[in-house]
């Protein structure tokens, strides 16, 4: 299993891998927002956490369609499906590799974008923390979408359409926890803990669903 993790990480960072593109997309999406709403620093700092979260959400979905499709195209997926060790575990490891290579860099880049959005230090920290605990859920939910769309020739866009509605709870609690950290009356902990719970829930449900989909997508 470690071998699979290392292989997937290597593939993401080698030439042609998607790791750089995701983070670039994140930067670009967040960077064009001020051109739409204007360079008013107060306004930007108010909407900052939400923008950074949405940007990270979209960027996290970007490389997702290749999660299983790349393995299917060269036939590796058949071999992954045949093995004795549980498929759920294999998928969990693949999700983990995807998260490490494609999503974790977004979390690391988020403070930088927080500066562009003129967010306070506390808000930046809160967004980074909520992204850190919330983004694995995106990878796990995305795995289901990627598994469903694996046999489709133009699955890329479809995966996003399928997955985005399912990620709404993550977005809601991630953003509300970030705001709770800066706006006094709202407590930070309840939404944050719900976010943690959502991530753990999908860590189980996501790979199970993806395994089911892959078993039935056999062609």
């Amino acid at each position, binding site marked *: *299993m*470690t*071998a*699979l993790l*290392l*292989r997937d990480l*290597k*593939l993401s960072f*080698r*030439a*042609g*891998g998607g790791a750089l593109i995701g983070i670039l997309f994140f930067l670009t999406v967040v960077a064009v927002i001020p051109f739409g709403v204007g360079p008013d620093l107060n306004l930007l700092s108010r909407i900052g956490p939400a923008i950074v979260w949405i940007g990270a959400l979209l960027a996290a979905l970007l490389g997702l369609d290749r999660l299983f499709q790349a393995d299917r*195209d*060269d*036939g*590796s997926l*058949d*071999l992954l*499906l*045949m*093995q*004795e060790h549980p498929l759920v575990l294999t998928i969990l490891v693949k999700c983990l590799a995807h998260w490490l290579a494609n999503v974790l860099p977004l979390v690391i880049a988020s403070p930088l974008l927080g500066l562009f959005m003129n967010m306070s230090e506390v808000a930046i920290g809160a967004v980074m923390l909520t992204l850190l605990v919330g983004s694995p859920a995106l990878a796990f939910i995305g795995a289901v979408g990627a598994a469903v769309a694996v046999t489709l020739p133009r699955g890329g866009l479809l995966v996003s359409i399928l997955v985005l509605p399912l990620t709404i709870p993550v977005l809601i609690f991630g953003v509300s926890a970030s705001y709770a950290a800066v706006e006094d009356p709202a407590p930070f902990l309840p939404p944050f803990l719900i976010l943690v719970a959502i991530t753990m829930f999908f860590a189980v449900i996501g790979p199970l669903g993806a395994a089911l989909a892959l078993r039935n997508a*056999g*062609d």
Partner: protein
Amino acid sequence: MRLLAENLSAHRGEDLIFSNISFELKEGQALILTGRNGSGKSTLLRVMAGLLRPASGTISFWYDAARKAHNLGEVAHYLGHRNAMKTELTVRENLAFWKDFLRDAAGGTGYSVVDAARAVELEQVLHLPFGYLSAGQQRRMSFAKLLVGYRPVWIVDEPTAALDVSAEALLARLMREHQVRGGVILAATHQPLELLDVKRLEMKGFEFAAGDED
């Protein structure tokens, strides 16, 4: 070691591809599937590997009288039309990954990466990215994958497509060696493969639709 397939049939979409296929293989035996294109050879092999669910029938595999495998896929190698190797990684990285990931099934041990590459006579290209190899070399290297992790059953689909005569003979020899060690081979092929103790199964295919069957 005994491999038993009983009354297998499979659909693809609405079409019945084949039905009522039964066979039994013992240690060291090989089953060669022949038949024209579209007769269901590849489908049968994918059913055997557990990648497609059969519409009916059962597949069972016994190590010996007492021990039965959960399903055939776990004790089998499957070499389909695609090579299951990453073009971005070097040959060595590819083989090392599969060796580590596949492990060995009960009853044998796989070759080391270098030995496997030597067995397909391509140890000079281990350091090259897989994508740099020619189609024939890629095929041979993906055959080396069958050697790095031990599996008693090999399911190979047109293993010698895109290969020249000498490479074909090389792979046939490797398959015979596998049989000598007690392995079982299921192969679909157009070329005459010289294997030991061969059973043949000619796939006829179905022209009529699935509805006619009932």
